[in-house]
C-alpha cells in the first residue's frame, strides 16, 4: 500500500498523515488500504470539523467526566490520589455483524469456563484425565479449597464475565485474557459513552450505534431473579465492594447508583444461622445475592485470608447453606490464571468436541518438558511469567524473572530458569495487536491547537452476563488504547488511555422497549434499605460539616477582634483562644491545621457514601477543601483571615444548600440532618456555657450572638444592649431561631419521629424518650433556669441522644 493511495480515500486534513503500520491490522483501514465502510459515516462528520471545534468538543467530554467526578486510582494506598479519567476521544467502531461473531465465540468460551469451574470445584475429572496439571491448580491462591464440593445456589458459578480481546494481523480476533473474578470496566464503559456523547452529539452517527443500557437492565433482572427465586423467601441483593481505597471504587458507586442497587462493604453484612444479612437502620435484612467486586480471598476471614479487614466472617457459611448466590461464585478467580490458556483449547475439544471459535493467546505451561524446550528456544518472541498470575499479559510485563529467593543461587539464564521453575512459569506468544485512530495533540497550543489522528494499538473488553436464556453481551464496550505506535502487547502497559467502543448497524437502531412486569411500564424502586454504615457516615458527615462551620465562625470572630484591638492579650481574645484550644484548634496558626482536618473528616464520610451523595455536593465539598488548603498558605492574621473565613462560611452554606434543596428525602437525609442539628445544639450549649458565664470577659455576650449568627435578630427583638437574659433567650429558648437550642431539639424530635420504629405499641422509641423531656424542659424554661451548670449538663444529655441514635440505628 502506498501512502499516495491513502490520500485519495481520506479527506486531506486530520486523517492525512494516518498510516497503517506494516504487518499490523488496522481498525480504520482494511488490508487493501480502503477505509472500512463502518467508519465512513463517522470520518465524514469528524473530518469536517475545524481544529477549534474538535478542541471544544473534546473539552466538553473532559468537562463532563470531571463534573461527574469520574476517576480511577492507580495506587490504592493514598486515598486522595484520584486520577482524571484518561479518555481517548475517538471511539473504536465495529460493525454489528462482526460483533455478533465475536459474541458467539465468547458465548461458547463462557460456557466452557463454567464447565471448567464446575469440574475444578466438583468431580475433578479434568485433573484426573490429565487435561489440567494438578500442581498448577493446587498452587493457585485463587483455587479456594473451602469451595470444593459446594454447589452454587441456582446451579451456576459464573454470571458476569469480561474478555479482553485483540485483533491479529490477519484480521481475526483472539482472547488475551478472561476476567472471571470480579470484572471491572462495565461502569466505565457507560461513562465513556456519556462522554463521547458530548463529542458527537449529532443524531446522525448516534442513531446507528447500539445502546449499552439494555445490557445492564437485563443483568439487573437476572441478579434480582437470583436474589429471590419465587419459591424462596424474599431476599434483596447488593454490590459488594472492597471500599473507597479500591482502584475502581468509583465504578462501584456509579453502577450502584445506575442500577439502584445497594453498595455494600464487608462490615455492612452479618451472617446468622447461615443467612447473610445487611445491617440496616431497620435491623438485619436477608440478602440473596451479592454482585461481588471484592476478591474472593478477602470475602471471609474465617475461611480464606485471615488477615482480611474487608471481609465478612461467616459469609462462606451462607454460601454453603445455599442461601446466598454470588456473582461470580467464590473461587472463580482460578480461571484467570494465565496457564489456564495453555489448556483451554484442548479442554474445549475434550468437553464439547468443538474447537474454540475464538482462539486465545498461545500459551505454553513450562511444567512439561516439550513445552519448556519450545519456550526456551523461542524466548525472544515470548512473554515469560508466573503461571498462576492473573494479570493480563501486558499488565504483567515481559520476562519478569521470578524472585529467586528460594533457589539459593544467582540470576540464571532463561533456560536454567525454565528448567528450575518450569512448573511455575508460562510462555505466552508476544502478540501483535491492531491499531485504531487516536487523537494526538500537537502539544504546544492547548487552546484550539492542532492535532492529528494517529494509529495506536488497542484491545477491547467485552462484557457478558448470564440470563435465563443464555449469555447476553454488552453491545459495545471498553477499549484500551496504547501509548505509542508499537503494536506489540507491551505497549499496552499502564499509562495508556481508554475509548468508547461503538457497535454500529447499517440502519438506525431503535431501542427495543423492554417488556417489563405485567404491572406496567414503570416501576418505582422501593424507597430503599439504608445500610447502617451508610446512615452512620451521613450522620457524621452532618456533624463534621457543622463542626467545621462552627469553628470557622469562631475563628472569624477571633480575627475580627484581633484586627480591632491588635492586642493578643485582650481578654476576649484569650477566652476565644482558650475556647478553641479545647476543640483542638491552635490559633497561633492563622488557619489552624485542625480546621483542614475537620473538612477532610467530612469529605472522608462523604467518600464512603458516594453512591448516595450528590455529585454536586461532592464537588462542593472538594472545592471547600481546596479553598481552605490554599488559604493556609496565604491568609494573614486579622481582617484578611476574617474575610477568608467568610468565604468558607459561604462555601459551607453552599454545600448545605445543595443538600437541603437537592437531596432526596430518604432516610439517609434524616441522619445527615440529625447530625447537623445535634452538633449545632452541642456547639450552642457549649458557647452559651462559656460566653454567658459570670466570669466571662466583657464583650463575650456579643461574641455569642455573633457566632450564633443572630446579631440582627437580637437588635430587632430586644432593642437593648446584650445581657445574659436576652442572649440566652435568643440562642436557647427561641423556637423560631434556627440556631436556638429549642428550635434544634425540636428538630431532633421531628427527625426522630420520621425514623423507623419511632413508635412501638403506642410507646415512643428509646431515642425519642431521650429527646422529649429535654424538649419539654427547654420549652418551659426561663433564661435564669439555664444556668452555666445546666448548659454543661445539656451537652451530656445530647451525648446520650447521640448514643441512643447509634445503638438503635447505626449498628
Amino acid at each position, binding site marked *: 500500500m502506498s501512502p499516495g493511495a491513502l490520500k485519495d480515500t481520506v479527506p486531506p486534513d486530520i486523517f492525512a498523515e494516518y498510516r497503517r503500520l506494516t504487518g499490523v491490522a488496522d481498525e480504520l483501514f482494511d488490508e487493501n488500504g480502503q477505509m472500512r465502510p463502518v467508519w465512513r459515516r463517522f470520518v465524514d462528520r469528524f473530518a469536517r470539523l475545524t481544529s477549534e471545534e474538535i478542541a471544544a468538543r473534546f473539552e466538553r467530554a473532559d468537562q463532563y467526566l470531571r463534573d461527574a467526578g469520574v476517576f480511577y486510582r492507580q495506587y490504592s494506598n493514598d486515598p486522595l490520589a484520584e486520577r482524571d479519567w484518561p479518555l481517548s476521544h475517538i471511539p473504536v467502531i465495529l460493525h454489528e455483524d462482526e460483533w455478533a461473531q465475536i459474541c458467539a465465540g465468547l458465548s461458547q468460551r463462557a460456557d466452557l469456563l463454567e464447565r471448567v469451574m464446575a469440574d475444578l470445584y466438583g468431580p475433578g475429572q479434568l485433573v*484426573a484425565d490429565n487435561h489440567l496439571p*494438578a500442581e498448577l*491448580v*493446587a498452587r493457585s491462591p485463587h483455587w479456594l479449597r473451602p469451595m470444593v464440593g459446594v454447589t452454587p445456589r441456582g446451579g451456576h458459578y459464573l454470571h458476569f464475565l469480561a474478555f479482553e480481546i485483540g485483533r491479529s494481523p490477519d484480521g481475526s480476533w483472539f482472547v488475551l485474557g478472561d476476567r472471571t473474578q470480579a470484572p471491572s470496566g462495565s461502569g466505565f464503559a457507560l461513562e465513556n459513552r456519556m462522554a463521547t456523547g458530548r463529542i458527537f452529539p449529532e443524531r446522525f452517527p448516534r442513531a446507528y450505534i447500539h445502546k449499552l443500557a439494555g445490557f445492564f437492565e437485563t443483568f439487573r433482572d437476572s441478579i434480582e431473579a437470583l436474589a429471590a427465586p419465587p419459591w424462596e423467601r424474599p431476599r434483596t441483593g447488593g454490590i459488594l465492594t472492597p471500599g473507597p481505597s479500591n482502584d475502581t471504587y468509583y465504578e462501584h458507586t456509579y453502577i450502584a447508583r445506575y442500577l439502584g442497587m445497594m453498595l455494600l462493604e464487608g462490615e455492612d453484612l452479618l451472617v*446468622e444461622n*447461615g443467612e447473610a444479612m445487611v445491617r440496616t437502620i431497620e435491623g438485619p435484612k436477608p440478602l440473596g445475592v451479592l454482585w461481588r467486586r471484592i476478591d474472593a480471598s478477602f470475602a471471609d476471614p474465617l*475461611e480464606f485470608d485471615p488477615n482480611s479487614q474487608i471481609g465478612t466472617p461467616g459469609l462462606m457459611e451462607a454460601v454453603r447453606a445455599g442461601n446466598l448466590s454470588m456473582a461470580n461464585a467464590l473461587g472463580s478467580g482460578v480461571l484467570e490464571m494465565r496457564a489456564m490458556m495453555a489448556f483451554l483449547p484442548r479442554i474445549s475439544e475434550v468437553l464439547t468436541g468443538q474447537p474454540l471459535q475464538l482462539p486465545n493467546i498461545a500459551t505454553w505451561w513450562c511444567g512439561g518438558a516439550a513445552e519448556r524446550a519450545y519456550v526456551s528456544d523461542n524466548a525472544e518472541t515470548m512473554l515469560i511469567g508466573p503461571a498462576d498470575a492473573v494479570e493480563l499479559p501486558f499488565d504483567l510485563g515481559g520476562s519478569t524473572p521470578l524472585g529467586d529467593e*528460594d533457589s539459593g543461587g544467582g540470576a540464571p539464564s532463561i533456560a536454567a530458569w525454565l528448567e528450575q521453575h518450569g512448573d511455575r512459569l508460562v510462555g505466552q506468544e508476544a502478540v501483535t495487536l491492531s491499531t485504531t485512530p487516536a487523537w494526538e495533540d500537537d502539544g504546544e497550543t492547548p487552546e484550539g491547537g492542532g492535532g492529528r489522528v494517529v494509529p495506536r494499538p488497542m484491545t477491547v473488553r467485552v462484557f457478558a452476563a448470564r440470563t435465563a436464556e443464555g449469555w447476553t453481551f454488552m453491545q459495545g464496550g471498553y477499549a484500551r488504547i496504547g501509548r505509542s505506535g508499537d503494536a506489540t502487547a507491551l505497549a499496552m502497559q499502564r499509562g495508556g488511555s481508554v475509548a468508547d467502543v461503538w457497535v454500529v448497524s447499517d440502519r438506525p437502531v431503535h431501542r427495543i422497549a423492554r417488556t417489563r412486569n405485567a404491572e406496567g411500564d414503570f416501576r418505582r424502586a422501593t424507597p430503599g434499605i439504608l445500610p447502617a454504615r451508610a446512615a452512620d457516615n451521613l450522620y457524621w458527615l452532618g456533624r463534621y460539616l457543622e463542626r467545621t462551620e462552627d469553628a470557622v465562625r469562631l475563628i472569624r470572630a477571633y480575627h475580627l477582634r484581633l484586627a480591632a484591638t491588635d492586642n493578643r492579650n485582650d481578654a476576649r481574645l484569650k477566652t476565644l483562644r482558650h475556647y478553641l484550644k479545647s476543640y483542638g484548634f491552635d490559633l497561633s496558626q492563622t488557619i489552624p491545621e485542625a480546621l483542614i482536618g475537620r473538612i477532610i473528616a467530612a469529605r472522608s464520610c462523604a467518600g464512603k457514601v458516594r453512591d448516595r451523595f450528590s455529585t454536586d455536593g461532592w464537588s462542593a465539598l472538594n472545592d471547600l477543601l481546596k479553598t481552605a488548603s490554599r488559604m493556609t498558605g496565604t491568609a494573614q492574621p486579622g481582617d484578611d483571615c476574617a474575610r477568608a473565613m467568610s468565604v468558607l462560611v459561604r462555601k459551607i452554606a453552599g454545600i448545605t444548600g445543595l443538600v437541603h434543596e437537592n437531596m432526596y428525602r430518604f432516610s439517609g437525609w434524616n441522619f445527615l440532618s440529625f447530625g447537623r442539628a445535634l452538633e449545632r445544639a452541642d456547639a450552642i450549649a457549649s458557647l452559651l456555657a462559656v460566653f454567658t458565664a459570670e466570669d466571662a470577659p466583657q464583650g463575650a455576650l456579643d461574641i455569642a450572638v455573633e457566632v450564633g449568627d443572630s446579631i440582627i435578630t437580637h437588635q430587632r427583638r430586644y432593642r437593648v444592649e446584650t445581657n445574659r437574659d436576652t442572649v440566652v433567650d435568643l440562642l436557647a429558648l427561641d423556637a423560631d431561631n434556627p440556631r436556638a437550642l429549642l428550635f434544634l431539639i425540636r428538630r431532633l424530635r421531628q427527625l426522630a419521629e420520621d425514623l423507623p420504629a419511632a413508635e412501638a405499641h403506642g410507646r415512643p422509641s428509646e431515642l425519642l424518650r431521650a429527646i422529649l423531656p429535654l424538649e419539654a424542659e427547654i420549652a418551659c424554661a426561663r433564661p435564669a433556669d439555664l444556668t452555666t451548670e445546666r448548659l454543661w449538663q445539656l451537652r451530656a444529655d445530647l451525648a446520650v441522644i447521640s448514643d441512643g441514635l447509634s445503638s438503635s440505628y447505626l*449498628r
Partner: protein
Amino acid sequence: MRYDVRLTIDYSYDAVSDRARNVLRLLPSDIPGQQRVQQRMLKVTPRPGERYDRVDFFGNATSAVAWHQPIQAFSLHLTAQVERIAVAMPLDLSPPLAGLAADIANVHTLLPTAPHHFMAASPRVAPMAATTEYARGCLTPGMTALQAVEAVGRALHRDMTFDPEATTVDTPPAEAFRNRHGVCQDFAHVMIAALRGIGVPAGYVSGFLRTFPPPGQPRLEGADAMHAWVRAWVGQETGWIEFDPTNDQFAGIDYITVGYGRDYGDVAPVRGVLRSSGGQESRQAVDVIPLEAVPEVRR
C-alpha cells in the same frame, strides 16, 4: 494404646465482643490404620447461638460457632477417648530424592491426600533460600526421600532450641529459623519450608502428644499443650510419613492427630475474628492420660 484426652481453652476479651464467630478444629477423627476415636465431645460455653459441625477440605472435623449476643469470654472443653494403633515403621520403599518429582507428577488428583497441595508456598510457609540451603546441607548423595526427611528433621532438632518464650503463634518461620529457636509450631514450620525447598511435599499436623513426667514424679494435670509435627510425602509406594522435629522421632504410638493442613493456618484450633476494640487472652490446659499399662521405653 488408648488415651483419655482432655483440653480446656479459655478465651477472654478486653472488651465485649459483639457477634463473635469462631471456627474450631479440636476434635480428633478416625484415621484408618492409625487411630480410632471411641468417643469425642466439644463443649462450648457460653452456649453459642449457632453451631455447625462438618469436615473441611483436608478431612478435619470443624465446628463453626457464633454467638448472637455480646460476649466477653468463652471456654472450650474437649473430651475424647482415642485409640492409637501401633504402626511398624515401614521398610523404606521411597524413591531416591531425585526421583520424587516423577512420582509426584504421576498423581493426577486434587484429593486432600495429593502431594500437590503441599509443594508450593502456603499462607504461612514459603520456601526460603536459607532453609533450602540448610536442607541441602543435610543430604548425602543417593538418599531416599524418606531418609532425606529424617535427616532434615533430626538436624533441625539438633540445631534448634526449644524455647517457649522466644516466639508467638504469629512468628514467621524465617525468624524462628534465623534464631534457631521456638516451639513445636516453629519447628514444624521450619521443617516444612526446608522440605518443600528440596522438593518434598510437606504439611502440618496438629494434635496431642502423650508426655512423660520426670522419673519418680507424678504426672502434673493440665501441664501439657497441643502439639504439632510434620508429615511428608515420600512417593506413591509409601505415601505420607510423620516426623516430629521437636522430639526427634517419627510420630508413633504417643501421637494423637487432630488436623492436617499445609501449615498452622489450616489447622489453627481456634480461628476467629474479634469485633471489639482491645486485645484478647487465652489459656490452654491439656491432659493426655493413657488408659493402659504404660510401656516405659520410648522410641
